[in-house]
């Protein structure tokens, strides 16, 4: 009996021995181990970075749904250092810092110590305290196409873009700085000059069709929100949004502007017309300064509802770029007028515009407060207008003269400001939300007035009760 069990056991064992060698190894997806593949990916990026003896040009949009972008030139060295310059600000000297290619969530390029690139994530930036331009020091590697390296920020993978393109420079040390200085110059070209119109317009021409957008450029955030009137059952306003990065010969936008079946990305500056032009398949998109806005909003009708409130402009409340250089020149002209008349140095401390739509009895008036520099004494003056009239979405104010006293003496000296408000072609009013300036933010409603007689003059101020 024992023998039977033993033989049975031996047969079973033999059977297991035979079937246990079945080759059930699955097909291997990768020929290399994970560690090797990580090392290869890291080497791939590092070799690409080191391959370019004169470095890369990189346009970095940290978050193209809030901000524009910046141009960098970077040269990566084998000792773990990187030389860099950028057009972020006027400090364009090449700086050296450290970088690493390492594996995080994927292969990453990390700028490990501070250089130009960290200006984009500097949270100590006035106006953007706590966030800066929401940039990063850590970029994930997403691939290489013809030498163009695509990187993404793990926090802003959808709206952040950073592409490194071989610089094509012959001498990185000299040419890179010249390039970013050219970009900085282009950043100035998009801003209005003291004499240019504040009405910055984007015109798109395709065939015989022309579409005009109010450009709405935020120079601080390098961000544009062009608005266009769209015809349908009812007229409506459609808004587009994109960030702007400046290049040596113009600018590029991100995301691209898709309109009427065309996609516009790169614009070239035309110095003769002070405009930026993008041509795609015969269609053109042009950013320019125009005599009138693309369309006038109905904001001016809000003035009818304001009641007995005044519009205040006071330099002491801080500056806002919506107040134009042309307007600053008006105030400078008043100071000059006092000086040339022999009164010494006087400046406009503040002025207030009170608008009434029912009375011609000087219930609409401009109050100007002047300061005499010699002793700091303040002088008040009042200038009367007839009732305000709104026609074709424009405000018309007809000047009727000064009140008695100082105002009579001051009238010819402050005439540049009176001319602004009595614009024969009217004033355009725009609601600008709550008040915000370089010095403060208040919940008071803010707005701008622009003269159509001289569209280089625009003032930003707040409404008070």
């Amino acid at each position, binding site marked *: 009996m024992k023998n039977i069990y*033993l033989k049975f056991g*031996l047969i079973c*064992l*033999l059977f*297991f*021995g035979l079937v*246990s*060698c079945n080759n059930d190894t699955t097909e291997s997806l990768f020929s290399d*181990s994970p*560690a*090797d593949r990580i*090392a290869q990916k890291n080497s791939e990026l590092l070799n690409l970075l080191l391959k370019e003896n004169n470095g890369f040009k990189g346009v970095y949009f940290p978050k193209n749904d809030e901000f524009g972008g910046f141009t960098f030139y970077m040269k990566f060295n084998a*000792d*773990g250092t990187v030389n860099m310059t950028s057009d972020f600000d006027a400090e364009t000297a090449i700086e050296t*810092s*450290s970088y*690493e290619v390492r594996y*995080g969530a994927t292969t990453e390029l*990390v*700028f*490990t*110590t*501070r250089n130009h690139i*960290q200006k984009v*994530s*500097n*949270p*100590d930036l006035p106006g953007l*305290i*706590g*966030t*800066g331009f*929401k*940039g*990063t*020091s*850590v970029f994930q590697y997403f691939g290489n196409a013809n030498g163009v390296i695509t990187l993404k920020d*793990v*926090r802003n993978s959808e709206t952040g873009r950073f592409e490194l393109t071989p610089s094509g420079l012959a001498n990185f040390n000299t040419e890179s700085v010249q390039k970013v200085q050219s970009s900085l110059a282009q950043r100035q070209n998009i801003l209005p000059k003291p004499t240019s119109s504040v009405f910055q317009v984007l015109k798109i021409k395709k065939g015989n069709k022309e579409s005009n957008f109010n450009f709405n450029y935020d120079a601080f955030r390098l961000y544009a929100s062009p608005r266009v009137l769209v015809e349908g059952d009812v007229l409506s306003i459609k808004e587009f949004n994109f960030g702007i990065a400046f290049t040596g010969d113009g600018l590029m936008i991100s995301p691209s502007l898709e309109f009427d079946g065309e996609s516009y990305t790169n614009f070239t500056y035309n110095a003769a017309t002070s405009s930026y032009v993008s041509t795609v398949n015969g269609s053109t998109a042009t950013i320019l300064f125009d005599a009138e806005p693309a369309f006038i909003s109905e904001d001016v009708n809000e003035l009818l509802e304001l009641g007995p409130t005044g519009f205040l402009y006071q330099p002491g409340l801080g500056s806002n770029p919506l107040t134009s250089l042309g307007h600053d020149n008006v105030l400078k002209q008043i100071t000059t007028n006092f000086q040339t008349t022999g009164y010494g140095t006087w400046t406009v401390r503040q002025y207030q515009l009170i608008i009434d739509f029912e009375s011609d009895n000087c219930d609409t008036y401009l109050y100007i407060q002047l300061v005499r520099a010699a002793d700091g004494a303040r002088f008040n003056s009042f200038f009367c207008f007839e009732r305000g009239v709104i026609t074709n979405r424009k405000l018309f104010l007809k000047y009727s003269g000064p009140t008695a006293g100082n105002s009579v003496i001051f009238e010819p000296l402050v005439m540049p400001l009176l001319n602004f408000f009595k614009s024969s072609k009217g004033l355009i009013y725009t609601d600008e939300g709550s008040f915000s300036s370089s010095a403060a933010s208040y919940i008071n409603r803010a707005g701008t007035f622009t003269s159509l007689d001289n569209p280089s003059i625009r003032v930003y101020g707040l409404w008070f009760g």
Partner: protein
Amino acid sequence: MKKLKYILLASLVLAFASACDDGSDSVAESQIDTNPPILNELDIYLRSNFVTPYNIEVLYKWDINDTDIDRYLHPPFESSVKPVANALQKAWIEPYTQVGGPNFIKKIAPRQFTFVGSFNYNPNSPTITLGVAEAGAKITLFNIDYLDFSNINSIKQPLKTVQHEYAHILNQNIPIDATYGLINPENYTAQWFNRSDEEARELGYITAYGSSQESEDFVEMVSEMLTNSKPEFDALVESISNPESKAIIRMKEAMVVDYYKKKFNIDLYELQELVAIATQKLVN
């Protein structure tokens, strides 16, 4: 015959065990990258002065996981690192070593410092975070790019942070007397930032942050004592106009001194003097 069966059985088991070996699990070269990192002059200095003697690592090269990923921060300039590291060595490690013995910092210390170049702004709050201590193992110092080493008050800022966080670490090793929190708990508040330091002192707290809670109260006392010389600290206390508050601060001072003496055998006043001299030398 029976023996023969067992030999046959053993041979079969052996054959069974070795039959499927195709050599694929043989030991190959390690897949772990053991290449040494690129070390620059600063890295070598930090290894020589912190890692080797104290097993403390100073991280200054950016790793997004070292700080709060939701905050917008950036690494320091390389040139900012050595002066701050040197300040830690001279005004924190060496005085503690002198009064606590050569092994004091080696045994009780954060094992990592992370240096961050930028300010760390707190969202929805008018405050910034100067430093963070995590589980007694790591201290993060912010805004080191903005320190002015010709101004003693600027240098005192990171040192105060370290003294503050290090006191937390000491408390985590040996807790403070629970009666400390009973001295004047009535004005502890989460909105401490609405108070000035002067207002807090009139309430019996050495700083506004010290009026946030008991544990912060204690370590703020320590850090104020260790970033001011004794005459400076006494002047600060004597400037309090409310005599009751002044007495409260003095009572807290006595408890802090007693804690250091009884728990660590450290004369806090001696330590205070050593730190003050070292800090002054950093400016000179």
